[in-house]
Structures are given as C-alpha cells and as structure tokens.
C-alpha cells in the first residue's frame, strides 16, 4: 500500500509540459488539467532549502508566472509540494554557516522567492505533509491556502536555535495577525497539524489519507471561479496587506543573516550540524 504521506514522483500528473524537462534538478514544475505543481525534489534531505534548492524553486516560480501570464494559459491554481516524507524541513544552513556572503545570498534568495511566490497571479495551495519548519513553514504560509494532516509538524523554532525568523515574520503577521504572530515567533517550538489549523497557520487539517483529495477538491473549486476575478482579488489583497513590500523583505534577509553570523547562533547551529550517528541536515528544534 502506498504511504499516503509520501509525495511520490509517480503521483505527479502524467501530462506535463516541456518545462519539466528543463527543471528536473531540485524543484520541478508540471502543468496538467489547469493546475500547475511546483515540487521540491530534495527528499533525501527532507527538502531542506539550500542555495541550489532555493534557486531551483525560484526558477519554477518564475516559469509558472510566465506561463500564467501567457495569453493561452489554462492554469487556474498552483500547488506547492515536497517530494518524499516532508514538505520542507526548513533552511539548510550547513554549507554556508561560516560563509557570511553566501549566507546573505541564501537568505536574500529565500526572501525574494517568497515575494515572487506571493505574487503568482493565480491562487496557490501548499500541500504540507510530514513537516513544514522555519523557512519551510514560511513557504506554506505565503501560499494562499495550506492543507496539512494531524501528524505533521509545523512551526518556527528559530529562536530555539538562536536564529531570528525575520524573513518569515512579515508573512506570518499577514496570515494570522500581529498579536498571535508575535506570541508564536517569540515562543518558538513546533506544533501538530490540528493546532496549526486552529491557530490559522494552515487553512485545513485533514486525515493524511485525504490530503491529495483535499488539495484536488480545492483546486477544482478554484477552477470554477472567474480567472480574472480571482487574479484581481488576489492582487488587491496583496496590495492591501503589504505583500508587495520589497523593502521589508530585503531588510528581513539582512537582519536574519546578521543574527546567524553572530556568536549565539553560530554556537547553537554548529552544535546542530555536528556529525551525528545517523547524519542528515536535521532542522528540528532541540526539544
């Protein structure tokens, strides 16, 4: 029996465009039946975001935007998903920990990718299985909808690691409001799928076996709305809630990079990334 939590390559739509062939690296874009899927493909590292993965994700977002904006576009929604057991385990800072320049590049890359993801002209749905941690949770929260299951772990444990969640903070404030966002980001930690739904982090929490069906139902419902009406609504919401603020996105990346370069974060991240018996760039909080 297929593990419902594993987003397998075979689960992707069969009818794909030529775009997929150009992006089979760490993220791919497939388009089928009016729905585009951007898939993170670094399952061996729980889709943790390193420089290459962020760059590949960005190329997929740009390609999807170009496709949506073409006259013949039939895309009515975009699903953001992660291959394997986890949606996205967060930032993979291991390779850039002691390289302030690349660290800055990476955070700028993420911040600008989130901005581009938000500005996609059709509704976006995050399909969150397993884990969406830190920057991974940021990806889910930037999407217009996010669907998860009770066993998934979501949240922002940045402060537990001496890191500042500056890049994801404005998006969380826009999603759940400033008061609740403040409490969530300062308290750190992670939560299960049901709590994430109750606190507004995701739109719905459904049994793991129903995750794909729920995403498909939502995509189908979105496809029944007027394409122009949805695009206009989304654009207006983005304008009103400050989603187009490039200055705050840029400032956030610099702030986050500065904190990571400091002694407090360096010490705790060095401990986190120290070789472990089972290895792997784990990005979970230490509790």
């Amino acid at each position, binding site marked *: 029996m297929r593990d419902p939590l594993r987003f397998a390559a075979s689960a992707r739509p069969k009818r794909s465009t030529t775009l997929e062939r150009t992006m089979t690296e760490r993220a791919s874009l497939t388009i089928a039946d009016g729905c585009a899927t951007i898939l993170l493909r670094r399952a061996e590292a729980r889709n943790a975001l390193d420089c290459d993965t962020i760059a590949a994700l960005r190329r997929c977002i740009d390609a999807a935007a170009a496709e949506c904006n073409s006259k013949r576009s039939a895309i009515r929604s975009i699903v953001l998903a992660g291959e394997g057991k986890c949606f996205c385990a967060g930032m993979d800072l291991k390779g850039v920990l002691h390289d302030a320049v690349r660290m800055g590049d990476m955070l700028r890359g993420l911040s600008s990718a989130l901005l581009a993801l938000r500005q996609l002209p059709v509704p976006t749905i995050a399909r969150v299985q397993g884990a969406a941690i830190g920057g991974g949770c940021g990806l889910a929260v930037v999407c217009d909808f996010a669907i998860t299951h009770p066993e998934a772990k979501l949240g922002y444990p940045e*402060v537990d*690691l001496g890191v500042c969640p500056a890049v994801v903070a404005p998006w969380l*404030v826009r999603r759940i409001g400033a*008061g609740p966002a403040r409490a969530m980001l*300062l308290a750190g930690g992670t939560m299960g799928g049901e709590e994430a739904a109750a606190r507004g982090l995701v739109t719905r929490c459904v049994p793991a076996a129903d995750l794909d069906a729920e995403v498909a139902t939502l995509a189908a419902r979105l496809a029944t709305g007027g394409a122009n009406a949805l695009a206009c609504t989304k654009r207006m919401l983005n304008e009103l809630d400050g989603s187009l603020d490039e200055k705050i996105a840029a400032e956030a990346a610099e702030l986050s990079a500065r*904190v990571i370069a400091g002694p407090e974060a360096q010490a705790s991240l060095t401990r986190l990334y120290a070789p472990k018996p089972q290895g792997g760039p784990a990005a979970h909080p230490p509790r």
Partner: protein
Amino acid sequence: MTTNEQPLIISQRAGRLLTITLNDPRRRNALGTALFDQLERALDLATAPEVSDPPSVIVLGATGSAFCAGFDLEACVQDAALLPTFVDRLGRLTARIRALPAVVVARVQGAALAGGCALVMSCDIVHASADATFGYPVHRIGVSPAVNVPVLLATAGLGAARRIALSGEIITARQAESLGMVQSVHADERTLHAAVAALAESLCAKGPHALRTTKAWLNQVDGTDAAGFLGAAATRAVQATIDVCRTAESRSMLESFWQQRRSRA
C-alpha cells in the same frame, strides 16, 4: 503612602527572568500615582544601562481578584489635574513596555480593564485565566481609549480594535482569545501560573540575542515601534485623550459615575 505599607509593586529576579507583580489588591490594582511611580521604578531598575545582566524575560502579573481595573478614579475625582497626567503616564508606560528588549508575558486573572487592558496589550504574549475580562469601558466616564488604540490596532487587527474601542464592551478571556488579544486561556489561576512559569522557563532557555532581535523586528513589522504607531501617532493619541479628559463633559460624567458607584457601595 508611608514606607510601612506593603509595596504596591513586587519585583523578583530569578536568573534571566524578572517577575513584576501589581500588588494593590484592595483597590483592584488601580493605576494611581504611587502605583505608576513604583512600576516605572521597577522597570528603571531592571533596564538601567549600568545593569550588567538585564532580564531577557519579564512576567507582568497581579495579586488579588483583578489584574488591574484601570485608573484610580477616586483620586481623579478629588484632583482634576490627575486624569490627564495618568493618561500621559499610561501612554509612555505602554510604549516603553513594547520597546523593552525583554520579552514581556502578561499573566492575567480577573478584570484587565481600561488602563489595565492597555498594559496587557502592550505585552508580547498574554496568558489569562478563564475568569479574566478585557475592554475599555471608559466612554461612560467621558474618556476616550484613544491612548491605547495604536497598540490595540496592531495587536488585534483593525476590525477587532474598532469594535473594542468604540463599543466599550467588556469581553471574556475566550472572546479576547478569538480576537487575537490573548494567546492562551487557562481554567483557573493555578493552571495559569503553571503555564506562565513553563513559558517563562522555555523563553529563558532561548538565545537572548535572537529573542531581542525578533521582538524588535516584530515591532517594526507590525508598526509598534517609534517609526510606526508608537511614534508620532502615539503622541497624537495621548494628546487627543488628554484633550477629551479636560472637557466639561468628561469632568461631569466622571463625577456622576463616581457618585453612583459610591451610593451603590
């Protein structure tokens, strides 16, 4: 106020945690000159530049059946100059709490009304017992809650802030939770204290630099810093509230409110 009396503010330091407790239960911790003085002094002592290890977490709690019932209205009736002064001090105090480098957790039981609600809203994380109540029922004394609107707007969002500030309604902890004004509601005071103690412990274990930076960034993002709501807008809000307090309407409403209360007592 003589030195023999119980202090109105109790400050306890334990490692990186500072607990500040409002301790005038007989007057439901009403904000008067002495309480303002002592609360400001507790913050001065904790945050003075010469303090080598400032707290990274502050819990703001209260003794008695109410967290804080608002201004000491009896004093305001006796001395007309006090109300505007209290408004000014409250405006400064709430802006100061929001700007503190430490993460501030409010631990609320009973009423947190008017100035008491303002204090709570300036904190970063709010835990309350189920019996807690929140709101700004100050229109009945001819006063505007404008002084706290900047922080309320940022914390609860535009729609909720408008409802709470204009209606003067007193809402329950559960309602406040659903509006984003409270993060966690506990069955009773015992579980409230336990939950806040656990939260404070976990906050103290986090990187202090990361926490401080994150709080400052959130202040910038949601506009509760000097460049946003707590700059010129807050100054205008305080002045607007003071102007209202100085009107004849406010004076007469306050006096009749106080007379009614006394005759009921």
